[in-house]
Protein backbone atom coordinates (compact mmCIF):
# COMPACT_ATOMS: atom_id res chain seq x y z
CA UNK A 1 0.00 0.00 0.00
CA UNK A 2 2.71 2.44 1.02
CA UNK A 3 4.77 1.27 -1.89
CA UNK A 4 2.08 2.09 -4.45
CA UNK A 5 1.58 5.48 -2.84
CA UNK A 6 5.31 6.06 -3.21
CA UNK A 7 5.28 5.17 -6.88
CA UNK A 8 2.19 7.34 -7.37
CA UNK A 9 4.13 10.28 -6.01
CA UNK A 10 7.08 9.31 -8.14
CA UNK A 11 4.91 9.25 -11.25
CA UNK A 12 3.43 12.62 -10.39
CA UNK A 13 6.90 14.04 -9.89
CA UNK A 14 8.08 12.63 -13.21
CA UNK A 15 4.97 14.00 -14.91
CA UNK A 16 5.66 17.43 -13.48
CA UNK A 17 9.25 17.26 -14.68
CA UNK A 18 8.18 16.16 -18.16
CA UNK A 19 5.58 18.91 -18.30
CA UNK A 20 8.12 21.50 -17.20
CA UNK A 21 10.76 20.38 -19.68
CA UNK A 22 8.35 20.18 -22.59
CA UNK A 23 6.80 23.53 -21.73
CA UNK A 24 10.28 24.99 -21.46
CA UNK A 25 11.29 23.72 -24.88
CA UNK A 26 8.11 25.14 -26.43
CA UNK A 27 8.53 28.57 -24.82
CA UNK A 28 12.22 28.40 -25.64
CA UNK A 29 11.49 27.87 -29.33
CA UNK A 30 9.73 31.25 -29.36
CA UNK A 31 12.73 32.93 -27.72
CA UNK A 32 14.83 31.12 -30.33
CA UNK A 33 12.91 32.67 -33.19
CA UNK A 34 13.23 36.21 -31.81
CA UNK A 35 16.89 35.61 -30.99
CA UNK A 36 17.61 34.10 -34.41
CA UNK A 37 16.40 37.30 -36.08
CA UNK A 38 18.45 39.37 -33.66
CA UNK A 39 21.56 37.29 -34.20
CA UNK A 40 21.17 37.28 -37.98
CA UNK A 41 21.00 41.09 -38.09
CA UNK A 42 23.97 41.38 -35.73
CA UNK A 43 25.98 38.89 -37.80
CA UNK A 44 25.36 40.60 -41.11
CA UNK A 45 25.59 44.29 -40.21
CA UNK A 46 27.10 44.32 -36.73
CA UNK A 47 24.10 46.00 -35.22
CA UNK A 48 21.99 44.86 -32.30
CA UNK A 49 18.38 45.70 -32.96
CA UNK A 50 16.84 46.98 -29.73
CA UNK A 51 13.48 47.29 -31.47
CA UNK A 52 13.20 43.53 -32.06
CA UNK A 53 10.84 43.21 -29.08
CA UNK A 54 8.65 46.00 -30.44
CA UNK A 55 8.51 44.31 -33.85
CA UNK A 56 7.17 41.30 -31.99
CA UNK A 57 4.58 43.47 -30.22
CA UNK A 58 3.55 44.83 -33.59
CA UNK A 59 3.05 41.27 -34.85
CA UNK A 60 0.95 40.48 -31.79
CA UNK A 61 -1.29 43.52 -32.26
CA UNK A 62 -1.68 42.88 -35.98
CA UNK A 63 -2.91 39.35 -35.44
CA UNK A 64 -5.04 40.48 -32.48
CA UNK A 65 -6.80 43.15 -34.53
CA UNK A 66 -7.16 40.89 -37.55
CA UNK A 67 -8.93 38.42 -35.28
CA UNK A 68 -11.04 40.94 -33.36
CA UNK A 69 -12.07 43.16 -36.26
CA UNK A 70 -12.34 40.76 -39.16
CA UNK A 71 -12.41 37.37 -37.47
CA UNK A 72 -9.27 36.21 -39.26
CA UNK A 73 -7.63 33.49 -37.20
CA UNK A 74 -4.05 34.28 -36.06
CA UNK A 75 -2.84 31.14 -37.81
CA UNK A 76 -4.39 32.33 -41.07
CA UNK A 77 -3.10 35.89 -40.82
CA UNK A 78 0.37 34.64 -39.94
CA UNK A 79 1.77 34.98 -43.45
CA UNK A 80 0.31 38.46 -43.90
CA UNK A 81 1.78 39.54 -40.55
CA UNK A 82 5.16 38.19 -41.61
CA UNK A 83 4.99 40.13 -44.87
CA UNK A 84 3.92 43.36 -43.15
CA UNK A 85 6.73 43.05 -40.62
CA UNK A 86 9.20 42.32 -43.41
CA UNK A 87 8.09 45.53 -45.13
CA UNK A 88 8.33 47.46 -41.85
CA UNK A 89 11.85 46.15 -41.26
CA UNK A 90 12.88 46.92 -44.83
CA UNK A 91 11.56 50.49 -44.58
CA UNK A 92 13.08 51.06 -41.15
CA UNK A 93 16.42 50.03 -42.60
CA UNK A 94 16.05 52.39 -45.57
CA UNK A 95 14.88 55.34 -43.48
CA UNK A 96 16.85 55.02 -40.26
CA UNK A 97 19.46 52.30 -40.06
CA UNK A 98 21.20 53.05 -43.35
CA UNK A 99 22.07 56.53 -42.06
CA UNK A 100 23.80 55.30 -38.92
CA UNK A 101 25.29 52.03 -40.15
CA UNK A 102 28.59 53.66 -41.10
CA UNK A 103 28.69 55.89 -38.02
CA UNK A 104 30.12 55.10 -34.60
CA UNK A 105 28.70 51.99 -32.88
CA UNK A 106 27.08 54.12 -30.17
CA UNK A 107 24.96 55.87 -32.80
CA UNK A 108 23.70 52.47 -33.95
CA UNK A 109 22.77 51.47 -30.41
CA UNK A 110 20.95 54.74 -29.85
CA UNK A 111 19.10 54.73 -33.16
CA UNK A 112 17.48 51.32 -32.63
CA UNK A 113 17.03 52.15 -28.96
CA UNK A 114 15.14 55.31 -29.92
CA UNK A 115 13.07 53.27 -32.35
CA UNK A 116 12.26 50.80 -29.60
CA UNK A 117 11.08 53.51 -27.19
CA UNK A 118 9.14 55.18 -29.97
CA UNK A 119 7.31 52.03 -31.09
CA UNK A 120 6.57 50.79 -27.57
CA UNK A 121 5.03 54.13 -26.58
CA UNK A 122 3.26 54.48 -29.90
CA UNK A 123 1.52 51.19 -29.14
CA UNK A 124 0.71 52.51 -25.67
CA UNK A 125 -0.61 55.75 -27.10
CA UNK A 126 -2.69 54.22 -29.86
CA UNK A 127 -4.00 51.08 -28.19
CA UNK A 128 -3.78 51.91 -24.51
CA UNK A 129 -2.23 49.93 -21.67
CA UNK A 130 -5.00 47.29 -21.48
CA UNK A 131 -4.11 43.63 -21.47
CA UNK A 132 -5.91 42.06 -24.41
CA UNK A 133 -6.35 38.40 -25.17
CA UNK A 134 -7.64 36.32 -28.05
CA UNK A 135 -10.16 33.69 -27.06
CA UNK A 136 -11.79 30.96 -29.06
CA UNK A 137 -9.35 30.90 -31.97
CA UNK A 138 -8.52 27.75 -33.91
CA UNK A 139 -5.66 26.95 -31.60
CA UNK A 140 -7.45 26.52 -28.30
CA UNK A 141 -8.13 23.69 -25.92
CA UNK A 142 -5.68 21.11 -24.67
CA UNK A 143 -4.12 17.97 -25.99
CA UNK A 144 -1.65 15.43 -24.69
CA UNK A 145 1.80 14.81 -26.04
CA UNK A 146 3.77 11.81 -24.71
CA UNK A 147 1.24 11.60 -21.90
CA UNK A 148 1.76 15.23 -20.87
CA UNK A 149 -1.18 17.61 -21.04
CA UNK A 150 -0.45 20.72 -23.10
CA UNK A 151 -2.36 23.68 -24.48
CA UNK A 152 -2.73 23.45 -28.24
CA UNK A 153 -1.82 27.13 -28.67
CA UNK A 154 1.52 26.66 -26.93
CA UNK A 155 2.24 23.50 -28.88
CA UNK A 156 1.54 25.23 -32.19
CA UNK A 157 3.56 28.31 -31.18
CA UNK A 158 6.55 26.22 -30.15
CA UNK A 159 6.50 23.90 -33.14
CA UNK A 160 5.76 26.77 -35.52
CA UNK A 161 8.69 28.79 -34.19
CA UNK A 162 11.01 25.82 -34.55
CA UNK A 163 9.76 25.29 -38.09
CA UNK A 164 10.38 28.92 -39.03
CA UNK A 165 13.88 28.68 -37.53
CA UNK A 166 14.51 25.60 -39.67
CA UNK A 167 13.22 27.43 -42.75
CA UNK A 168 15.50 30.37 -41.96
CA UNK A 169 18.43 28.01 -41.64
CA UNK A 170 17.59 26.30 -44.93
CA UNK A 171 17.21 29.68 -46.60
CA UNK A 172 20.65 30.78 -45.43
CA UNK A 173 22.27 27.47 -46.27
CA UNK A 174 20.76 26.47 -49.60
CA UNK A 175 19.48 29.49 -51.51
CA UNK A 176 21.59 31.79 -53.61
CA UNK A 177 20.43 34.84 -51.67
CA UNK A 178 21.05 33.10 -48.37
CA UNK A 179 24.59 32.35 -49.42
CA UNK A 180 25.06 36.00 -50.30
CA UNK A 181 23.82 36.91 -46.81
CA UNK A 182 26.33 34.51 -45.29
CA UNK A 183 29.12 35.88 -47.43
CA UNK A 184 28.30 39.42 -46.32
CA UNK A 185 28.31 38.33 -42.72
CA UNK A 186 31.73 36.68 -43.13
CA UNK A 187 33.49 39.48 -44.94
CA UNK A 188 31.65 42.54 -46.12
CA UNK A 189 34.44 43.94 -48.30
CA UNK A 190 35.07 40.70 -50.15
CA UNK A 191 31.35 40.21 -50.63
CA UNK A 192 31.12 43.68 -52.17
CA UNK A 193 34.05 42.86 -54.44
CA UNK A 194 32.30 39.66 -55.53
CA UNK A 195 29.46 41.79 -56.84
CA UNK A 196 27.06 41.36 -53.97
CA UNK A 197 24.93 44.43 -53.30
CA UNK A 198 25.61 44.45 -49.57
CA UNK A 199 23.33 47.37 -48.90
CA UNK A 200 20.39 45.43 -50.31
CA UNK A 201 21.47 42.38 -48.32
CA UNK A 202 21.38 44.56 -45.20
CA UNK A 203 17.89 45.83 -45.94
CA UNK A 204 16.51 42.37 -46.69
CA UNK A 205 18.23 40.88 -43.64
CA UNK A 206 16.75 43.56 -41.43
CA UNK A 207 13.35 42.77 -42.94
CA UNK A 208 13.80 39.05 -42.31
CA UNK A 209 14.84 39.72 -38.72
CA UNK A 210 11.75 41.84 -38.18
CA UNK A 211 9.57 39.18 -39.83
CA UNK A 212 10.97 36.55 -37.44
CA UNK A 213 9.92 38.71 -34.50
CA UNK A 214 6.53 39.35 -36.12
CA UNK A 215 5.87 35.64 -36.65
CA UNK A 216 6.84 34.94 -33.04
CA UNK A 217 4.39 37.64 -31.96
CA UNK A 218 1.58 36.29 -34.11
CA UNK A 219 2.15 32.76 -32.80
CA UNK A 220 2.08 33.72 -29.13
CA UNK A 221 -0.90 36.05 -29.51
CA UNK A 222 -3.01 32.87 -29.29
CA UNK A 223 -2.26 32.38 -25.61
CA UNK A 224 -0.23 35.35 -24.35
CA UNK A 225 -1.60 38.68 -23.21
CA UNK A 226 -1.20 41.43 -25.80
CA UNK A 227 -0.01 44.70 -24.23
CA UNK A 228 2.52 47.38 -25.20
CA UNK A 229 5.23 46.41 -22.70
CA UNK A 230 5.34 42.71 -23.59
CA UNK A 231 8.23 43.27 -25.99
CA UNK A 232 10.72 44.08 -23.23
CA UNK A 233 10.20 40.66 -21.62
CA UNK A 234 10.95 38.85 -24.84
CA UNK A 235 13.81 41.07 -25.99
CA UNK A 236 15.67 40.45 -22.72
CA UNK A 237 15.30 36.71 -23.14
CA UNK A 238 16.34 36.96 -26.77
CA UNK A 239 19.47 38.94 -25.82
CA UNK A 240 20.42 36.23 -23.35
CA UNK A 241 19.71 33.50 -25.91
CA UNK A 242 21.83 35.31 -28.50
CA UNK A 243 24.77 35.70 -26.11
CA UNK A 244 24.58 32.05 -25.01
CA UNK A 245 24.50 30.88 -28.60
CA UNK A 246 27.34 33.11 -29.71
CA UNK A 247 26.65 36.44 -31.37
CA UNK A 248 25.89 36.22 -35.07
CA UNK A 249 25.38 32.46 -34.89
CA UNK A 250 21.79 31.69 -35.91
CA UNK A 251 21.94 28.00 -34.98
CA UNK A 252 23.53 28.90 -31.66
CA UNK A 253 20.75 31.40 -31.00
CA UNK A 254 18.21 28.63 -31.61
CA UNK A 255 19.74 26.36 -28.99
CA UNK A 256 20.35 29.31 -26.69
CA UNK A 257 16.62 30.05 -26.81
CA UNK A 258 15.73 26.45 -25.96
CA UNK A 259 18.15 26.50 -23.01
CA UNK A 260 16.67 29.75 -21.70
CA UNK A 261 13.11 28.44 -22.04
CA UNK A 262 13.89 25.25 -20.12
CA UNK A 263 15.79 27.14 -17.41
CA UNK A 264 12.94 29.63 -17.07
CA UNK A 265 10.34 26.94 -16.48
CA UNK A 266 12.60 24.85 -14.24
CA UNK A 267 13.34 27.94 -12.14
CA UNK A 268 9.70 28.92 -11.81
CA UNK A 269 8.52 25.42 -10.94
CA UNK A 270 11.33 24.23 -8.69
CA UNK A 271 12.85 27.42 -7.25
CA UNK A 272 10.56 30.46 -7.15
CA UNK A 273 8.72 32.20 -9.99
CA UNK A 274 9.95 35.63 -8.86
CA UNK A 275 13.56 34.47 -9.10
CA UNK A 276 13.38 33.19 -12.69
CA UNK A 277 14.70 36.41 -14.26
CA UNK A 278 17.52 36.92 -11.74
CA UNK A 279 18.55 33.30 -12.40
CA UNK A 280 18.49 33.80 -16.16
CA UNK A 281 20.39 37.08 -15.88
CA UNK A 282 22.86 35.30 -13.59
CA UNK A 283 23.49 32.78 -16.34
CA UNK A 284 23.84 35.65 -18.78
CA UNK A 285 26.51 37.32 -16.60
CA UNK A 286 28.33 34.00 -16.25
CA UNK A 287 28.39 33.48 -20.01
CA UNK A 288 29.31 37.02 -21.01
CA UNK A 289 32.13 37.31 -18.49
CA UNK A 290 33.53 33.77 -18.84
CA UNK A 291 32.65 32.69 -22.39
CA UNK A 292 31.81 35.87 -24.33
CA UNK A 293 31.90 34.02 -27.65
CA UNK A 294 29.04 31.73 -26.62
CA UNK A 295 28.90 28.33 -24.98
CA UNK A 296 29.01 26.38 -28.23
CA UNK A 297 32.43 27.69 -29.24
CA UNK A 298 35.46 25.86 -27.98
Amino acid sequence: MRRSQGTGKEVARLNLLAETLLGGVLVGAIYSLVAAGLSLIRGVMGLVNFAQGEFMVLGMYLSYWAYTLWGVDPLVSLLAVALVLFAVGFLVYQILIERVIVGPPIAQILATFGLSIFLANLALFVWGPEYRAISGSMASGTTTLLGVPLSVAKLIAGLGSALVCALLYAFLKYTRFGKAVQATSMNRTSATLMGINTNRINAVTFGIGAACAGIAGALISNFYYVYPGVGSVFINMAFVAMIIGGVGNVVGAFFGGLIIGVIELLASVYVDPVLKYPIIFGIYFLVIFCKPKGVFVR
Partner: protein
Amino acid sequence: MVANHSTNQTPMEPPVSRLTGYRWRIVGVILLLCLGLVLAPAIINNMFFLHVMIMVFLFGGLGEAWNVIGGYAGQVSLGHTIFFGIGAYSSVMCFKLWGITPWIGGLIIGGAIAALVAALIGLPSFRLTGIFFTITSIALGETARILFLNWKWVGGSIGLELPILGTSWAAMQFRSKVPYYYITLGFTVFSALVVYILSRCRIGYYLRSLKEDEEAARSLGIDTRRYKLIAVMISAYLTAMGGALYAQYLRYIDPNVVISYSISIRICLVVICGGVATVLGPVLGSALLISLAEYSRALMGGGGRGVDLLVYGLLLMIVVVFKPGGIIRIGQKRTPTGKRVSV
Protein backbone atom coordinates in the same frame (compact mmCIF):
# COMPACT_ATOMS: atom_id res chain seq x y z
CA MET B 1 46.74 68.15 -45.17
CA VAL B 2 44.25 70.70 -46.37
CA ALA B 3 43.33 71.63 -42.82
CA ASN B 4 47.00 72.12 -41.93
CA HIS B 5 47.49 74.34 -44.91
CA SER B 6 44.67 76.70 -43.99
CA THR B 7 45.73 77.02 -40.34
CA ASN B 8 49.23 77.94 -41.47
CA GLN B 9 47.91 80.75 -43.59
CA THR B 10 45.69 82.42 -40.98
CA PRO B 11 47.48 84.20 -38.14
CA MET B 12 47.01 82.84 -34.62
CA GLU B 13 45.58 86.01 -33.06
CA PRO B 14 42.00 86.31 -34.44
CA PRO B 15 40.77 82.78 -33.64
CA VAL B 16 41.99 83.05 -30.05
CA SER B 17 40.32 86.38 -29.37
CA ARG B 18 37.15 85.19 -31.09
CA LEU B 19 37.16 82.15 -28.87
CA THR B 20 37.54 84.13 -25.67
CA GLY B 21 34.84 86.55 -26.79
CA TYR B 22 32.53 83.61 -27.46
CA ARG B 23 33.36 82.15 -24.07
CA TRP B 24 32.69 85.43 -22.26
CA ARG B 25 29.34 85.66 -23.94
CA ILE B 26 28.48 82.15 -22.73
CA VAL B 27 29.58 82.98 -19.20
CA GLY B 28 27.44 86.11 -19.27
CA VAL B 29 24.39 84.22 -20.47
CA ILE B 30 24.90 81.55 -17.80
CA LEU B 31 25.23 84.16 -15.04
CA LEU B 32 22.07 85.92 -16.20
CA LEU B 33 20.23 82.59 -16.35
CA CYS B 34 21.42 81.68 -12.85
CA LEU B 35 20.25 85.00 -11.50
CA GLY B 36 16.88 84.48 -13.18
CA LEU B 37 16.60 80.96 -11.76
CA VAL B 38 17.48 82.10 -8.26
CA LEU B 39 14.85 84.85 -8.38
CA ALA B 40 12.20 82.82 -10.23
CA PRO B 41 10.37 81.31 -7.20
CA ALA B 42 9.91 84.80 -5.73
CA ILE B 43 8.19 85.98 -8.90
CA ILE B 44 6.34 82.92 -10.18
CA ASN B 45 4.59 81.25 -7.29
CA ASN B 46 2.92 78.51 -9.27
CA MET B 47 3.12 75.04 -7.71
CA PHE B 48 3.18 73.23 -11.00
CA PHE B 49 5.90 75.47 -12.43
CA LEU B 50 8.01 74.79 -9.35
CA HIS B 51 7.44 71.05 -9.71
CA VAL B 52 8.53 71.12 -13.35
CA MET B 53 11.63 73.12 -12.48
CA ILE B 54 12.52 70.71 -9.65
CA MET B 55 12.32 67.77 -12.07
CA VAL B 56 14.32 69.69 -14.67
CA PHE B 57 17.08 70.43 -12.13
CA LEU B 58 17.04 66.87 -10.83
CA PHE B 59 17.41 65.31 -14.26
CA GLY B 60 19.87 68.02 -15.29
CA GLY B 61 22.11 66.97 -12.41
CA LEU B 62 21.56 63.27 -13.13
CA GLY B 63 22.37 63.89 -16.78
CA GLU B 64 25.64 65.57 -15.77
CA ALA B 65 26.41 62.49 -13.68
CA TRP B 66 25.68 60.14 -16.58
CA ASN B 67 27.71 62.37 -18.87
CA VAL B 68 30.92 61.48 -17.00
CA ILE B 69 30.74 57.80 -17.97
CA GLY B 70 28.34 57.86 -20.93
CA GLY B 71 29.45 61.10 -22.58
CA TYR B 72 33.13 61.59 -21.88
CA ALA B 73 34.13 57.94 -21.53
CA GLY B 74 31.63 56.75 -24.15
CA GLN B 75 30.30 53.79 -22.14
CA VAL B 76 26.54 53.90 -22.71
CA SER B 77 25.00 52.69 -19.48
CA LEU B 78 21.29 51.96 -19.28
CA GLY B 79 21.55 50.78 -15.70
CA HIS B 80 22.10 54.03 -13.85
CA THR B 81 18.84 53.49 -12.06
CA ILE B 82 20.76 51.12 -9.74
CA PHE B 83 22.76 54.05 -8.34
CA PHE B 84 19.67 56.24 -8.27
CA GLY B 85 17.85 53.57 -6.28
CA ILE B 86 20.78 53.08 -3.91
CA GLY B 87 20.79 56.80 -3.14
CA ALA B 88 17.04 56.87 -2.56
CA TYR B 89 17.03 53.75 -0.39
CA SER B 90 20.10 54.77 1.66
CA SER B 91 18.60 58.13 2.42
CA VAL B 92 15.26 56.72 3.57
CA MET B 93 16.68 53.69 5.39
CA CYS B 94 19.29 55.71 7.29
CA PHE B 95 16.62 58.13 8.44
CA LYS B 96 14.07 55.47 9.39
CA LEU B 97 16.43 53.09 11.14
CA TRP B 98 19.01 55.31 12.79
CA GLY B 99 17.62 58.80 12.44
CA ILE B 100 20.58 59.91 10.32
CA THR B 101 19.75 63.11 8.48
CA PRO B 102 19.32 62.69 4.69
CA TRP B 103 22.05 65.29 4.19
CA ILE B 104 24.51 62.66 5.43
CA GLY B 105 22.55 59.44 4.89
CA GLY B 106 21.64 60.21 1.31
CA LEU B 107 24.21 62.63 -0.01
CA ILE B 108 27.27 61.04 1.63
CA ILE B 109 26.54 57.47 2.75
CA GLY B 110 24.28 56.75 -0.24
CA GLY B 111 26.82 58.20 -2.64
CA ALA B 112 29.63 56.20 -1.07
CA ILE B 113 27.66 52.94 -1.26
CA ALA B 114 26.73 53.67 -4.87
CA ALA B 115 30.37 54.38 -5.75
CA LEU B 116 31.44 51.14 -4.11
CA VAL B 117 28.76 49.15 -5.96
CA ALA B 118 29.77 50.91 -9.18
CA ALA B 119 33.36 49.79 -8.69
CA LEU B 120 32.28 46.21 -8.01
CA ILE B 121 30.03 46.14 -11.09
CA GLY B 122 32.51 48.05 -13.21
CA LEU B 123 35.45 45.74 -12.62
CA PRO B 124 34.04 42.90 -14.72
CA SER B 125 31.73 45.01 -16.90
CA PHE B 126 34.43 47.24 -18.37
CA ARG B 127 35.91 44.24 -20.12
CA LEU B 128 32.84 44.46 -22.36
CA THR B 129 32.55 47.12 -25.02
CA GLY B 130 29.82 48.82 -26.99
CA ILE B 131 26.50 47.06 -27.17
CA PHE B 132 27.50 44.28 -24.77
CA PHE B 133 28.26 46.79 -22.04
CA THR B 134 24.87 48.38 -22.66
CA ILE B 135 22.92 45.11 -22.62
CA THR B 136 24.74 44.03 -19.46
CA SER B 137 23.84 47.30 -17.76
CA ILE B 138 20.16 46.75 -18.63
CA ALA B 139 20.29 43.23 -17.24
CA LEU B 140 21.97 44.49 -14.04
CA GLY B 141 19.31 47.16 -13.58
CA GLU B 142 16.48 44.66 -14.03
CA THR B 143 18.14 42.21 -11.65
CA ALA B 144 18.52 44.94 -9.02
CA ARG B 145 14.85 45.89 -9.37
CA ILE B 146 13.65 42.31 -8.90
CA LEU B 147 15.98 41.76 -5.95
CA PHE B 148 14.74 44.94 -4.24
CA LEU B 149 11.13 43.92 -4.93
CA ASN B 150 11.74 40.76 -2.94
CA TRP B 151 14.03 42.18 -0.25
CA LYS B 152 11.81 42.36 2.83
CA TRP B 153 14.25 44.42 4.94
CA VAL B 154 13.84 47.41 2.64
CA GLY B 155 10.08 47.01 2.38
CA GLY B 156 9.94 44.77 -0.70
CA SER B 157 7.26 45.66 -3.19
CA ILE B 158 5.31 47.69 -0.61
CA GLY B 159 8.07 50.28 -0.56
CA LEU B 160 9.06 52.74 2.13
CA GLU B 161 7.32 55.83 3.33
CA LEU B 162 9.01 58.73 5.08
CA PRO B 163 7.32 59.97 8.25
CA ILE B 164 5.89 63.40 7.55
CA LEU B 165 7.48 65.95 9.87
CA GLY B 166 6.41 69.24 8.32
CA THR B 167 9.15 71.70 7.56
CA SER B 168 12.51 70.62 8.91
CA TRP B 169 15.93 71.30 7.41
CA ALA B 170 17.48 68.47 9.41
CA ALA B 171 15.06 65.94 7.92
CA MET B 172 15.18 67.64 4.50
CA GLN B 173 11.41 67.92 4.44
CA PHE B 174 9.44 71.00 3.57
CA ARG B 175 5.79 71.91 3.18
CA SER B 176 6.57 74.33 0.38
CA LYS B 177 8.24 73.38 -2.88
CA VAL B 178 10.60 76.37 -2.82
CA PRO B 179 13.34 74.77 -0.67
CA TYR B 180 13.32 71.70 -2.93
CA TYR B 181 13.69 74.09 -5.85
CA TYR B 182 16.88 75.58 -4.40
CA ILE B 183 18.26 72.21 -3.25
CA THR B 184 17.84 70.63 -6.67
CA LEU B 185 19.19 73.77 -8.32
CA GLY B 186 22.23 73.41 -6.09
CA PHE B 187 22.53 69.76 -7.10
CA THR B 188 22.57 70.65 -10.80
CA VAL B 189 25.13 73.39 -10.30
CA PHE B 190 27.30 71.08 -8.19
CA SER B 191 27.13 68.26 -10.78
CA ALA B 192 27.85 70.65 -13.62
CA LEU B 193 30.84 72.04 -11.72
CA VAL B 194 32.19 68.54 -11.13
CA VAL B 195 31.84 67.77 -14.83
CA TYR B 196 33.40 71.11 -15.77
CA ILE B 197 36.43 70.48 -13.57
CA LEU B 198 36.73 66.87 -14.76
CA SER B 199 36.52 67.85 -18.40
CA ARG B 200 39.37 70.31 -18.00
CA CYS B 201 41.77 68.21 -16.02
CA ARG B 202 43.89 65.28 -17.06
CA ILE B 203 41.27 62.61 -16.40
CA GLY B 204 38.80 64.30 -18.76
CA TYR B 205 41.30 64.07 -21.59
CA TYR B 206 42.07 60.45 -20.72
CA LEU B 207 38.37 59.59 -20.85
CA ARG B 208 37.89 61.32 -24.19
CA SER B 209 40.91 59.55 -25.62
CA LEU B 210 39.76 56.12 -24.51
CA LYS B 211 36.34 56.85 -25.97
CA GLU B 212 37.83 57.63 -29.37
CA ASP B 213 40.18 54.67 -29.48
CA GLU B 214 40.76 52.54 -26.43
CA GLU B 215 43.64 50.57 -27.95
CA ALA B 216 45.47 53.74 -28.90
CA ALA B 217 44.90 55.24 -25.46
CA ARG B 218 46.28 52.14 -23.81
CA SER B 219 49.28 52.08 -26.10
CA LEU B 220 50.08 55.61 -24.90
CA GLY B 221 50.26 54.29 -21.37
CA ILE B 222 46.82 55.26 -20.09
CA ASP B 223 45.43 52.72 -17.68
CA THR B 224 42.01 52.82 -19.35
CA ARG B 225 40.28 50.44 -16.94
CA ARG B 226 41.38 52.49 -13.96
CA TYR B 227 40.06 55.72 -15.44
CA LYS B 228 36.80 54.10 -16.48
CA LEU B 229 36.42 52.89 -12.91
CA ILE B 230 37.10 56.36 -11.50
CA ALA B 231 34.61 57.82 -13.97
CA VAL B 232 31.84 55.39 -13.10
CA MET B 233 32.42 55.90 -9.38
CA ILE B 234 32.07 59.67 -9.70
CA SER B 235 29.04 59.18 -11.90
CA ALA B 236 27.44 56.75 -9.43
CA TYR B 237 28.10 59.08 -6.50
CA LEU B 238 26.36 61.99 -8.21
CA THR B 239 23.48 59.78 -9.40
CA ALA B 240 22.91 58.53 -5.86
CA MET B 241 22.74 62.14 -4.65
CA GLY B 242 19.97 62.72 -7.17
CA GLY B 243 18.19 59.58 -6.00
CA ALA B 244 18.31 60.76 -2.39
CA LEU B 245 16.88 64.16 -3.31
CA TYR B 246 14.12 62.50 -5.31
CA ALA B 247 13.20 60.28 -2.36
CA GLN B 248 13.04 63.32 -0.07
CA TYR B 249 10.87 65.13 -2.57
CA LEU B 250 8.44 62.22 -3.11
CA ARG B 251 8.58 60.97 0.52
CA TYR B 252 7.68 57.54 -0.77
CA ILE B 253 9.79 55.04 -2.66
CA ASP B 254 9.34 51.55 -4.00
CA PRO B 255 11.49 49.54 -6.42
CA ASN B 256 9.26 50.22 -9.42
CA VAL B 257 9.53 53.97 -8.84
CA VAL B 258 13.24 54.40 -8.15
CA ILE B 259 14.82 51.33 -9.80
CA SER B 260 13.09 51.28 -13.14
CA TYR B 261 14.37 51.00 -16.67
CA SER B 262 12.49 54.19 -17.55
CA ILE B 263 14.65 56.21 -15.13
CA SER B 264 17.78 54.88 -16.84
CA ILE B 265 16.27 55.82 -20.19
CA ARG B 266 15.42 59.34 -19.10
CA ILE B 267 18.86 59.98 -17.60
CA CYS B 268 20.54 58.79 -20.78
CA LEU B 269 18.21 60.60 -23.20
CA VAL B 270 18.58 63.95 -21.48
CA VAL B 271 22.30 63.83 -22.24
CA ILE B 272 22.11 62.35 -25.73
CA CYS B 273 19.55 64.89 -26.89
CA GLY B 274 21.14 67.83 -25.09
CA GLY B 275 24.71 67.16 -26.08
CA VAL B 276 27.13 64.44 -25.05
CA ALA B 277 30.48 65.31 -23.54
CA THR B 278 29.54 68.94 -22.98
CA VAL B 279 29.03 70.70 -19.67
CA LEU B 280 25.80 72.48 -20.57
CA GLY B 281 24.29 69.83 -22.86
CA PRO B 282 22.62 67.72 -20.15
CA VAL B 283 21.07 70.80 -18.52
CA LEU B 284 19.74 72.01 -21.85
CA GLY B 285 18.45 68.52 -22.67
CA SER B 286 16.75 68.27 -19.30
CA ALA B 287 15.15 71.71 -19.67
CA LEU B 288 13.68 70.66 -23.01
CA LEU B 289 12.78 67.01 -22.45
CA ILE B 290 11.65 67.02 -18.84
CA SER B 291 9.51 70.13 -19.13
CA LEU B 292 8.04 68.68 -22.31
CA ALA B 293 7.29 65.46 -20.44
CA GLU B 294 5.76 67.14 -17.39
CA TYR B 295 3.62 69.57 -19.37
CA SER B 296 2.43 66.91 -21.82
CA ARG B 297 1.54 64.70 -18.88
CA ALA B 298 -0.49 67.53 -17.34
CA LEU B 299 -2.10 68.31 -20.67
CA MET B 300 -3.07 64.74 -21.49
CA GLY B 301 -4.30 64.26 -17.95
CA GLY B 302 -3.37 61.50 -15.50
CA GLY B 303 -2.01 58.66 -17.57
CA GLY B 304 -0.44 60.68 -20.35
CA ARG B 305 -0.15 57.33 -22.12
CA GLY B 306 3.59 57.55 -22.54
CA VAL B 307 3.37 60.48 -24.93
CA ASP B 308 6.54 61.93 -23.43
CA LEU B 309 8.56 58.80 -24.13
CA LEU B 310 7.01 58.66 -27.60
CA VAL B 311 8.43 62.10 -28.30
CA TYR B 312 11.76 61.15 -26.66
CA GLY B 313 12.14 58.15 -28.93
CA LEU B 314 11.39 60.19 -32.02
CA LEU B 315 13.72 62.97 -30.89
CA LEU B 316 16.48 60.47 -30.15
CA MET B 317 16.29 59.06 -33.68
CA ILE B 318 16.28 62.53 -35.21
CA VAL B 319 19.22 63.70 -33.08
CA VAL B 320 21.28 60.58 -33.80
CA VAL B 321 20.73 60.89 -37.53
CA PHE B 322 20.96 64.65 -38.04
CA LYS B 323 22.81 66.13 -35.06
CA PRO B 324 24.80 63.36 -33.39
CA GLY B 325 26.42 65.87 -31.04
CA GLY B 326 23.11 66.94 -29.49
CA ILE B 327 20.99 70.07 -29.73
CA ILE B 328 23.62 72.18 -27.98
CA ARG B 329 25.77 71.86 -31.09
CA ILE B 330 23.12 73.38 -33.36
CA GLY B 331 24.65 76.47 -34.90
CA GLN B 332 28.12 75.36 -33.96
CA LYS B 333 30.54 74.70 -36.73
CA ARG B 334 32.14 71.31 -37.10
CA THR B 335 35.13 70.51 -34.97
CA PRO B 336 38.36 72.14 -36.16
CA THR B 337 39.63 68.85 -37.56
CA GLY B 338 36.51 68.59 -39.68
CA LYS B 339 35.78 65.22 -38.17
CA ARG B 340 32.24 64.30 -37.18
CA VAL B 341 31.66 64.49 -33.46
CA SER B 342 30.95 61.00 -32.27
CA VAL B 343 27.95 60.52 -30.02
